[in-house]
């Protein structure tokens, strides 16, 4: 996906003017200044009682004591958390049977600490690597990784492609906001060509990863891409990814109006979402279109689905076979080994 135009201020302004005529109502002056949970949570926590209909029905899925989230106003992280929580709720998953593994960066905060399950908040880039160990030891648990483009495509890119190759039963959701947001807006491996960031102050002279395509090529049983403009499709895709055996991956194109917006003139989250709406094209519609025709478009939908053997199942089958053989070898009635000098040279 190339988002060159999206990140060209002139182009973006022209587009924004076209889709948002001058008579567009001014934004709510108080938008973003109010804490939507103010009062509600305090009452809930101090009184220890259900505060009634004002309480969101999905709040029990969150670590309420630390709400509201630290996400900036307009961040896509809340949309992803919303879709994820709805997905878990609709699937009827028991959060006690889930482990969310994350790395370092804004997107890692989406489930950790906010989602109430076992959460393993790891070092930068290593979320998928840690998740391997959890899943191998506890195949009965749903192990989900949510992290950003810097974490999964940058510093942890090697773990991502190898986990996909191994086809281990993880669901990995990469929230791609094209930027290192937490550190203030540095260029990332998915930042489009030509874009200004704090560390590409003139322009980005590198080409970005099309990270979902990379993972699709590396392996994995399910690969999809959606944007924060598509929360319902995203939610369904998440359900599919969590349920699917083997490695599942969703690239979630998201907005960072603060750190990405500050150098790119893209600080209005609503306009960015409208832009996602306009440039997104479904994978079926994109089939047969040329590279040129797809320039600047975001191809969304299911990119790959297949049923390769899951890694953990292979490991466990090998152990079963080996232990059956060992059981026969060590059976009490098995022929005793020839008594040698008692010294074995391996």
């Amino acid at each position, binding site marked *: 996906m190339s988002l060159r135009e999206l990140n060209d201020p002139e182009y973006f302004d022209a587009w924004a003017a076209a889709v948002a005529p001058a008579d567009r109502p001014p934004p709510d002056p108080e938008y973003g200044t109010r804490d939507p949970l103010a009062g509600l949570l305090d009452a809930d926590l101090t009184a220890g009682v259900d505060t009634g209909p004002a309480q969101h029905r999905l709040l029990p899925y969150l670590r309420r004591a630390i709400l509201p989230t630290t996400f900036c106003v307009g961040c896509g992280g809340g949309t992803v958390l919303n879709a994820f929580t709805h997905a878990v709720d609709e699937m009827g998953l028991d959060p006690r049977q889930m482990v969310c593994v994350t790395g370092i960066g804004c997107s890692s905060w989406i489930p950790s600490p906010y989602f109430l399950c*076992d959460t393993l908040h790891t070092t930068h880039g290593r979320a998928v690597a840690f998740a391997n*160990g959890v*899943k191998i*030891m*506890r195949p009965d*648990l749903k192990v989900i990784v949510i992290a950003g483009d810097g974490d999964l495509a940058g510093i942890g890119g090697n773990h991502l492609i*190898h986990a996909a190759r191994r086809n281990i039963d993880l669901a990995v959701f990469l929230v791609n906001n094209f930027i290192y947001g937490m550190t203030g807006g540095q260029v990332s491996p998915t930042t489009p060509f030509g874009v200004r960031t704090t560390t590409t102050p003139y322009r980005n002279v590198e080409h970005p990863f099309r990270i979902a395509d990379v993972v699709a090529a590396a392996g994995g049983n399910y690969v999809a891409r959606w944007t924060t403009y598509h929360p319902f499709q995203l939610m369904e895709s998440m359900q599919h990814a969590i349920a699917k055996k083997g490695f599942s991956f969703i690239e979630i194109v998201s907005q960072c109006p603060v750190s990405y917006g500050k150098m790119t003139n893209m600080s209005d989250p609503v306009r960015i979402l409208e832009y996602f709406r306009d440039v997104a094209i479904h994978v079926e519609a994109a089939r047969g279109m040329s590279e040129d025709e797809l320039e600047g478009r975001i191809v969304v939908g299911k990119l790959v689905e297949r049923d390769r053997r899951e890694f953990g199942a292979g490991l466990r089958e090998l152990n079963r076979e080996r232990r059956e053989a*060992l059981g026969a070898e060590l059976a009490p009635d098995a022929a005793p080994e020839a008594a040698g000098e008692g010294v074995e040279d*391996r």
Partner: protein
Amino acid sequence: MIQSRDSAGLRTRYLARLAGRKHFIQGDEAAALGAIYAGCSFFGGYPITPASEIAEVMARELPNTDGYYVQFEDELASISAVIGAAWAGARAMTATSGPGFSLMQENIGYACMTETPCVIVDVQRSGPSTGQATLPAQGDVMQARWGTHGDHEIIALAPSSAQECADLMIDCFNLAEEYRTPVIFLMDGEIGHLREQVVFPDPDTVTLTPRRQAAPGETVFGGQTVPPMLEFGHGGYVHVTGSTHKEDGMRDVQTQAVHDRLVRRLVAKIETARDRVARVDLDAQEGAEIGVLAYGATARPAKGAVLRARAAGRRVTFIRPVTIWPFPHRQIGAACRSLRRLIVPEMNLGQLAREVERFVTCEVVPLGKIGGVIHSSSEILAAIQEGGR
């Protein structure tokens, strides 16, 4: 005993077979089989000389005990998966050498901070960088202590024989559980590839320290010097983070007192264990004015030199720290009290000698040797004779 995964006593019979014969194996192989004895159920690794044999034996043997061997894409992934596996219930380990040990440092710090029991074997080779890849050294002594950033304490043991590779490996796993901390098994290439007779203990005589699980109401990240663990999948909603956290695991990176309390406790829990963990193989001689302190492979020619010097009528004390970190300074300080001079041969340019110097009153003579060749006993004997003049 960790027997929960032992269907129909298969593990018991498997260990009994191991114990029932003498083995003529390398230190690496002994360390791997020691880990199997210690109940290791997960090994994440990456090939590297001179530690690859550990991975090979684990790949061969772990399926026999229903454990998992996974070769990862690099050492970063290996240590990460080891920590993840530990939180999912494994007694987990990895094995590497200097370059891989360097790569693991960040997550060794994560294991310290999150109090994750695990064992990291470093079969030291000649560095820095790729150095002499196939040749032994003891250049990672200080890296084991200070390799990861920030204040922390670490436990590190150094074996001097293939037999000790097996025996101390069991101790490494037990210490990791007892103190809920990463433990470094500081081997060296000489011992890793040294082929000697090894016998394994009767499985019934091996005591394995079980993992203490938090009772309802107990905090997992504080509240006592060594808090209990609460593994994943038990409905504990555990939050594990390498960021500064409160006793319930929740992040608080702004409050000075929270960080102070956490890190001081992490340091104190190893510090208070110093005398319990510290092991020194001491062969003191009455009236000796000269001492030799050596560890790992170097302890072998050092002991030889001491015996030769004694045969020639010289009084010499021999000190071998088995525990390198936390440094057994009380035992070593006491052993050196009557000495005039302490010779410290090691396969680096004096890393442990400097630590020794801090705690003894006698003169410390570093006898560093690098280049991948172990000291001869004659070299050390010459230093003893020179020291006596």
